[in-house]
């Protein structure tokens, strides 16, 4: 069987946990039905068969808790500027992004920081994916 790609909204792990706990509670009370499990399955599919998304976060230092100075996101349905409806960064820290399912795939390029006299690029850039 050929799997159809599922490029729906990203399903955070926290949402999956909530759905599973909900199923457990329904199981305990005898209310669990097939549709509950199929909804859970859809969420799992969306989480695992989704197109890779990229998040760039520039910080003021190599410290992961450092001040976020720039952001961009390349994910279906998301503003590429990495902002919310109020114009603020989607994540105030790198940690918040990781809590939302992003994994670091590239740490800041230290070669660029070796030049004593000049500065290159915007801050220190972490690249994340999910």
């Amino acid at each position: 069987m050929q799997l159809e790609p599922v490029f729906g909204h990203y399903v955070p792990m926290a949402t999956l946990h909530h759905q599973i706990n909900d199923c457990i509670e329904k199981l305990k009370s005898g209310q669990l039905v097939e549709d509950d499990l199929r909804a859970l399955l859809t969420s799992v599919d969306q989480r695992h068969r989704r197109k890779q998304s990229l998040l760039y976060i520039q910080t003021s230092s190599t410290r992961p808790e450092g001040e976020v100075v720039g952001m961009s996101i390349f994910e279906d349905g998301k503003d590429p500027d990495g902002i919310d409806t109020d114009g603020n960064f989607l994540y105030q820290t790198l940690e918040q992004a990781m809590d939302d399912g992003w994994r670091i795939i590239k740490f800041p390029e230290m070669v660029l920081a070796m030049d004593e006299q000049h500065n290159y690029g915007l801050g220190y850039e972490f690249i994340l994916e999910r």
Partner: protein
Amino acid sequence: MNSSSSANDFEATAAPTAPYGQTFDCQPSLTDRQVADFCREGYLILPSVVPDDINQMVVDYLDSVDDPVRQGTEPTPIMKQPWFVEGVLKNPQAVGAVRSLLGRNITLPVIISNHRGSLPNHSSGGWHRDGGTIYTHRLDYLQVFYYPEQCTPEMGPTEVLPGSHFLRAKANMMAHYGKIDRTVSTAAPAGSIFLTVYGIWHRRTRATVGPTGRSKFRNLLKYNYWRTTEPTRDWIIDPQFDFNSFHFITSTGVYFEQFQNAFDAAHLFCWLCGIGDQFQRLGGQCWPITSTVRDGTNQMGIPPALRTGSTED
């Protein structure tokens, strides 16, 4: 002229030739502090300096040449219109600032570009520095922008990143940048002109409003002035200005190695003063980073011509 003016109407008022690249002189209008501010931030916004009647004629002209054949994106022949040359290119407040930064006998532009943005435009332009940028502590030319109509935040004004004229990057390697903190919007009233160091990072922001104003487009003219003389401190000198306590660190200093942009800005300022050879970066707590010195103390390494109590010109 009015909103239905045609290109033929403007041909009737055109001079036989345009003053492309001609030199001219005027009085400087910036003070020591304003020149130092420009060195640090890399831009200067002059709101509402062009009179409304000139602004309206510019908009009419741009609308009359709005097609590719007539080079709507590069309406350089507008320089054949004497009212444009006098009212915009030689606008007293604008060229007073240009003259302060580029010295005597500056050249008029040789091309005029128009960033004519459709309204709305739901995507922003990418961050970039303009092609031809070099990183230097010289200032031999200025990139100047002019809004002939009001440009509100909803009309996609250009935003700039202060201090980024010393932040090295290739334009193609900036394309993935999105929101950057501490940027400055150039949203401004009609007739506003802003000057930048050529290599400053900038982008068009998204336009969320539909066709607006007289033109129904966001028009933003762009052109360069060039230096023809060696730099010297011949702007408005303020005898009370203290180069020891001036804060050369920009609001985006956090994007640099600590104090790095202050050294760059101070070096540029020294070059403009004609004392580039006096600039030295001693290391440690040297000029210009020790701006909290007290009681008229000179920072270590401050150029002799800028020392408190200096009698040098």
